[in-house]
């Protein structure tokens, strides 16, 4: 059968693959509702701010316009970091499923670009940028402002993707992992140096972001001229990304191969069943490339931001919740997928399901607490010695948020399992749209909890945080118990096992 190729084939393939993914969505109605919510939120971010400003008489647009350059640059930084840590971006189809199809690296690149907006951090930045621009421009220049910001978002995403693929070429080369780690450390130290010398914000505000902000703020009549320029730059950047994508995807992922070909020496037999289960579960997490990489980014990223920004303890309180909810997205929302197809064999072993559940929940909790402890430790360098109340509030918050997230993750893992192979650094434990839903719910819950404890840490009552923790812990432990009961029941457990085993 002839399979002629033309330059439009990658676009046609992309369309077919997106349609295939849309058709295989397990709960189409929920997906449709989620899509509508995303569109409504975007429209609200674009249309509502000028009216809110007028009604609430908040600070004038001139106050917000000053932040626009750093916000525009911040989006660029986020896109680049996200693409680098994601090994080039999301997969349109899992690698083992895609292997039998003639999917070109160009289609892979376009697919990763198309799926990159399905990420809560990305969406929040987009809404913030659109909202701020809308507030600044008001009615005059609104359309051109929104158009320019949307094009900047597209350009930044394409640039981030191109950088992500380029880094992936290096990572997949000889000593690539060490080189990328060294570059990352140098980059982080460079950012710290810039901050300490007082040049971090000027650098962020300078360059193209400042120029673009001057077009966006609605004061220039020639702002329209920037639209075709940005459009052309975006198209060029999308096309530029094709080259590193091809080069990266033709190379073998060295870090994955290293794990698979490496020797893991035998250790003595543990003394209890629970200890053996814990060892197996910990190995599944710590030997996984995407999880290790995700943990490093999650733990160090916010910690470094806090370090550079010299956050106070009141602000640091928000970070553990974000790190813990982000860490849960690496595998916790589909916790049984750690066993892969081995879940069928594991389920045939004579061990009470309760023991299995508790081992998995404990490993997830350890993972989340470990990540947030690194963040808080880094943040504490500049935040100084906390007061007794702040220390109590932080420890209570860590406990509450961890139990909250572990309980809800174990519940979701039992209710909506997915068969996924987390071998690739580009894989996610659930489909992209589901991940957006999960991340939104986790972020809202943990941020709200953090605000409660942040407020409590500012007062003089040492007993307030522990007292506030009691009902929250009670509620979360109740959820955890429900999740455990769900797992212990043979029929629902069989459904999870069969689904995860594929």
């Amino acid at each position, binding site marked *: 059968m002839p399979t002629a190729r033309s330059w439009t084939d990658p676009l046609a393939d992309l369309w077919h693959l997106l349609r295939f993914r849309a058709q295989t969505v397990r709960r189409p109605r929920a997906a449709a509702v989620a899509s509508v919510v995303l569109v409504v939120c975007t429209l609200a971010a674009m249309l509502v701010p000028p009216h809110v400003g007028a009604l609430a008489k908040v600070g004038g647009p001139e106050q917000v316009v000053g932040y626009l350059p750093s916000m525009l640059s911040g989006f660029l930084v986020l896109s680049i970091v996200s693409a680098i840590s994601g090994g080039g971006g999301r997969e349109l189809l899992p690698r083992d499923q895609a292997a039998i199809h003639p999917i070109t690296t160009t289609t892979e690149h376009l697919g990763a670009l198309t799926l990159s907006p399905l990420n809560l951090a990305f969406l929040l930045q987009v809404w913030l940028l659109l909202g701020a621009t809308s507030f600044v421009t008001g009615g005059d220049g609104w359309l051109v402002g929104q158009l320019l910001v949307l094009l900047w978002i597209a350009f930044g995403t394409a640039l981030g993707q191109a950088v992500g693929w380029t880094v992936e070429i290096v990572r997949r080369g000889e000593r690539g992992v060490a080189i990328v780690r060294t570059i990352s450390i140098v980059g982080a130290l460079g950012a710290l140096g810039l901050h300490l010398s007082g040049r971090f914000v000027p650098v962020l505000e300078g360059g193209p972001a400042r120029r673009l902000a001057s077009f966006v703020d609605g004061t220039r009549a020639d702002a329209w001229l920037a639209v075709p320029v940005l459009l052309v730059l975006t198209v060029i950047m999308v096309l530029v990304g094709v080259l590193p994508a091809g080069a990266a995807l033709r190379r073998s992922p060295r870090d994955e*191969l290293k*794990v*698979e*070909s*490496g*020797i*893991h*020496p*035998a250790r003595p*037999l*543990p003394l209890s*069943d629970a200890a*053996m*289960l814990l*060892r*197996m579960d910990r*190995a*599944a997490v710590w*030997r*996984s490339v995407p999880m290790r990489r995700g943990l490093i980014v999650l733990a160090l990223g916010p910690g470094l931001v806090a370090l550079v920004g010299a956050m106070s303890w009141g602000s640091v309180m928000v970070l553990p919740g974000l790190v813990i909810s982000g860490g849960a997205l690496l595998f916790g929302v589909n916790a049984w997928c*750690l*066993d*892969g*197809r*081995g879940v*069928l*064999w*594991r*389920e*045939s*072993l*004579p*061990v*009470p399901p309760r023991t299995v559940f508790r081992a998995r929940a404990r490993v997830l909790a350890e993972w989340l607490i470990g990540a947030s402890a690194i963040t808080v430790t880094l943040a504490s360098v500049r935040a100084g010695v906390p007061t007794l109340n702040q220390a109590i509030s932080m420890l209570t918050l860590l406990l509450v948020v961890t139990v909250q997230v572990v309980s809800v993750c174990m519940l979701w893992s039992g209710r909506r399992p997915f068969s996924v*192979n987390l*071998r690739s650094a580009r894989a996610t434990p659930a489909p992209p749209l589901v991940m957006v839903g999960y991340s939104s719910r986790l972020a809202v819950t943990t941020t709200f909890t953090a605000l409660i404890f942040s407020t409590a840490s500012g007062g003089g009552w040492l007993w307030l945080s522990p007292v506030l923790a009691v009902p929250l812990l009670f509620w979360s432990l109740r959820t955890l118990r429900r999740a455990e009961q769900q797992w212990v029941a*043979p*029929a629902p457990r*069989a*459904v999870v*096992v*069969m689904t995860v*085993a*594929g």
Partner: protein
Amino acid sequence: MPPVIDVHDLHVRFGEVEAVAGIDLSAEAGQATALLGRNGAGKSTTMRVLAGVVPPTEGTVLVGGVDVARDAISVKRLVGYCPDVGGLVPLATPWEHLQLIARLRRIDDWETRSRDLLERFDLGDVSHRVTSGFSHGMSRRLSVVLAAFHQPDVLLLDEPFDGVDPIGVDATLDVVADARARGACVLVSTHLRDLAMQACTTAVVLRSGARVASMASGELEGEAGADAYRALLD
């Protein structure tokens, strides 16, 4: 002597789908039974029920006299199960899989037998590498090792020969023969009729989730057996 595996009117439903629709099955100690049938006939689901992984929706399933629906843990103690798909934890090594079995099944002095089995299945060199890098055939061979390791009273092998090289096939046939010799009940589900006949003494043919025939394996051997088998599948 009552059969080791005794299944009456087994039904398994997943929502609207009835994977098993009233199977009756019995298997004796010291015998190997082949479970044959087309894709979707209900072989793997039946195996999963017998392994205590999937609960029966209706019917009675006794393994070694223990009701699977009432006491799945006790059934799991009696059974060694090689699942049809994967069956291995991706980021654990074969040695860690065997350690898990040794720990949960309270096996003392397990290391010598582990090494012996791994060598017999040509997996000695990779015993400390994670299984996600294994080929399909290697994974199948290790799954058989894991099922047979603790010398279970009931050995359930689901597609043990799929993609396995001749050395692995011989080792698997040896495992089945050893199990029978020590009085274990063996159930082998496979599409490879010739190997099934070589390994087993009796055969049960399933179609559309129900049993359609039960016979001595000799009746399905050779060309005449192949014709008889095809006739049962249509």
